[in-house]
C-alpha cells in the first residue's frame, strides 16, 4: 500500500506578526513550521501504516527550505519525502497547486490514499484536498474526524464532521481525505526517526521533473486574483426585554412573530 501525505510549511502562528497598515503577514524572520492540521494527516497515515503496512511518502510544494518539513515528517515515521520546488511555481493559487501536486503524485508508484490537513492556517482555503481528488480521479472525504479500517483493509469507515453533527461514510481505496485535529493525537518523533531524517537525501523535483505544462503552474496557471482580504463582520442586534416574566414572554413572542420565525 502506498500512502501520500501532502504537507505545507506555514509561518509559525506563535511568532508571526501582522502589518496593520498593509493588512498582510510579516513573514520576514518568522520561523516556518508544518501546518498544524498536517500533523494529524501524518498521524492518520502512520496509523494506517501501523495497521496495514504501507509506504508513506510526504509531498510538499515550496522553497528548498521546505526540506525541513519533510525531515520532520520523516522523524515521525514517514518513509520518504519529496519537495516539489521551482521558481516557476511561485504565485500558485489552489488550482495551480493541485495541478502541481497531482503531477508529482502521478510520478509515485500507484497511490492508494492521499491525506491532507483540513486546510492550511495561512491561506485557509481548504481547497487543495478536494481539488487534488478531482485531478487524481479519486473520491474525496473532507473534515474527517474518525477513521476505522473495513473490508479487510480494502476501505475505510469515516466520520465526516459537519456543523450539525457528523456523517458516517464508507469508502474504498484509492481515496483523498482531509482531516481534522480531533481525529487523533500526533505522536512524538523517535530518536531513530530523527537520525534517519537527518541523513536522508530529500529529492527536489522541478517543473520539468514532474512534466508540468508551463501555463498551468505558478502565476500563469492561477486565475485567482486577491483584491483584498478582510475579516467579515457579523453584526447581531441585541435587545433587552424589560418587565415581569409574563410581559417579557409576550414581548418575545411579538418579536418572533415580527421576524417571521413563528
Amino acid at each position, binding site marked *: 500500500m502506498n500512502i501520500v501525505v501532502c504537507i505545507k510549511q506555514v509561518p509559525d502562528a506563535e511568532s508571526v506578526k501582522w502589518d496593520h497598515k498593509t493588512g498582510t503577514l510579516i513573514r520576514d524572520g518568522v520561523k516556518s513550521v508544518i501546518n498544524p492540521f498536517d500533523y494529524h494527516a501524518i498521524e492518520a497515515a502512520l496509523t494506517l501504516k501501523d495497521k496495514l503496512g504501507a509506504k508513506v511518502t510526504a509531498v510538499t510544494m515550496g522553497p528548498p527550505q521546505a526540506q525541513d518539513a519533510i525531515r520532520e515528517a520523516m522523524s515521525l515515521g514517514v518513509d520518504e519525502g519529496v519537495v516539489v520546488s521551482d521558481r516557476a511555481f511561485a504565485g500558485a493559487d489552489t488550482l495551480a497547486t493541485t495541478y502541481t501536486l497531482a503531477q508529482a503524485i502521478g510520478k509515485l508508484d500507484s497511490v492508494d490514499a492521499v491525506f491532507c490537513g483540513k486546510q492550511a492556517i495561512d491561506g485557509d482555503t481548504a481547497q487543495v484536498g478536494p481539488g487534488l481528488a478531482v485531478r487524481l480521479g479519486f473520491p474525496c472525504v473532507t473534515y474527517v474526524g474518525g477513521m476505522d479500517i473495513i473490508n479487510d483493509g480494502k476501505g475505510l469507515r469515516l466520520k465526516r464532521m459537519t456543523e450539525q453533527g457528523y456523517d458516517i461514510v464508507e469508502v474504498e481505496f484509492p481515496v483523498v481525505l482531509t482531516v481534522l485535529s480531533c481525529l487523533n493525537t500526533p*505522536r*512524538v*518523533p*523517535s*530518536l*531513530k526517526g*530523527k*537520525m534517519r531524517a*537527518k541523513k536522508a537525501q530529500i529529492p527536489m523535483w522541478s517543473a520539468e521533473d514532474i512534466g508540468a505544462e508551463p501555463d498551468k503552474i505558478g502565476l500563469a496557471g492561477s486565475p485567482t486574483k486577491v483584491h483584498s482580504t478582510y475579516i467579515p463582520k457579523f453584526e447581531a442586534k441585541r435587545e433587552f426585554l424589560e418587565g415581569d416574566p409574563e410581559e417579557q414572554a409576550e414581548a418575545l413572542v411579538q418579536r418572533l412573530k415580527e421576524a417571521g420565525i413563528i
Partner: protein
Amino acid sequence: MANVNYFLTEEQQMIVDLARQIAREKIIPVRAELDEKEEFPWDIMKDLAQADLFGLYIPEEYGGFGGGCFENCLAVEQLAYGCIAVTTTFAASALGGYPIVMYGSDEQKKKYLPEIASGEKLAAFGLTEAGAGSDAAAIKTTAVEDGDYWVLNGTKQWITSGGEAEIYTIIALTDKNKGPRGASAFIVEKGDEGFSFGKKEKKMGLRASATRELIFNDCRIPKDRLLGRRGLGFIIAMKTLDLARPGIGAIGVGLSQAALDESVNYARQRVQFGQPIISFQAIQHMLADMATQIEAARALVYAVARTIDSGEKDISKISAMAKLFPTDVAMKVTTDAVQILGGYGYMKEYPVEKMMRDAKILQIYEGTNQIQRNVIGQALNKEYARK
C-alpha cells in the same frame, strides 16, 4: 548572550531536542493534574517508548541506542524540566535495567533488554526494606536454593514503579553469614508465583510516580534468574547506583532550571512599588545565585557522566558528587523560587510549589545526601592514605 557550550555531538543534541519536545508538549500540560490525582503517567511512558528513549543506555544488539551515562543524563535533565515524578518513573526502568546490562547472561540480556529498550515493559529495582535504607546491608529478604528454583521471602519497601513494572531486579540474602558477599541479585517478573504488591504509598511530592511494597511469600523463580554470580548482590547494587547517581543529579539540574525560568519570568512581570521586582537587587541576587549554582551543577554532572563513559572503573566518589551537589542545589533553588513568587508561589495555580515538594525526594532517594557525603569522605580518606 553566550551560554556555556558543552560541545554535544549531533546525536546528543537530538536527544536533548527530543526530550525537551516531550517535556513541553506531553508532560507540562498534564503535570499538575497527574500530581493532584496521583495518576501513573502511562500515556507519557508510551510517548517515551515511541521516542526510543527507554533504550538510550542499552547496547544496540539488544535493541537500544548504545549510549552511556551521559546520554541518559541529557534525556532526564530535559524531562525533569517538565516533571520529576514522570522522569523518576522513566529513570526507574533504567535502574532495573542497568544490572541486566552489566551482569546479565547473554540469555538474560536477549530475553529482557529488548522489552525494556522498546519501553514495552517497565523495569524496577528493589533493594530498600523497612529496616534497611541507608544501611543497605541490613536487608532481611532471603533467597534459598530449592532444586531448580530459588525461593524468595521478605518485603521490599518504597519501590518506584512497584506494581506497574513487569521486570524487577531484586537484592536478597543468600548466605547470611558471609557479610558483603552474602547477597545475590535476581530477576523477578510480575506474575511470578508468590510475588505480590502492597498498597500504593501517599507521598508529599513525586505523586505521579507509583511507590509500593514488593511482597515475596515463598516466591519461586527458576534458577536462571540469578544475575551474575551468587554473592555479587551488594556489588551489583552498588555498581548500579554508582551508574545511576549522575542521572539523579541531572534530574536536579532540569528541575532547578524549570524553577529558575519560572522565577525570572515572574520577576520580570510582577510589579511592586511601581516597578518589576527583578529591578530590586534582593531579587536579582537570588536569581544570580540560582543561575550560577545550576550551571555549576550541570557542568559537574556532565563532566562526571563523561568520565564514567570513558571507562573509569572506581567511580563511587565522583558519582556521589554528581548526585549530592545538584540535588542540594535543586532544593535551594526550588525553595527560593517559591520565595520569589511569594504568595503566588505557595498556590497550586503556579508550578513552583510542586517543584519544591518534588525536590525534597532528590536529597533522599538513591542514597541520602548524608550517605553521599560518607562515600566522598571515605574515598578521600583512602586516597590520601595512599599518598
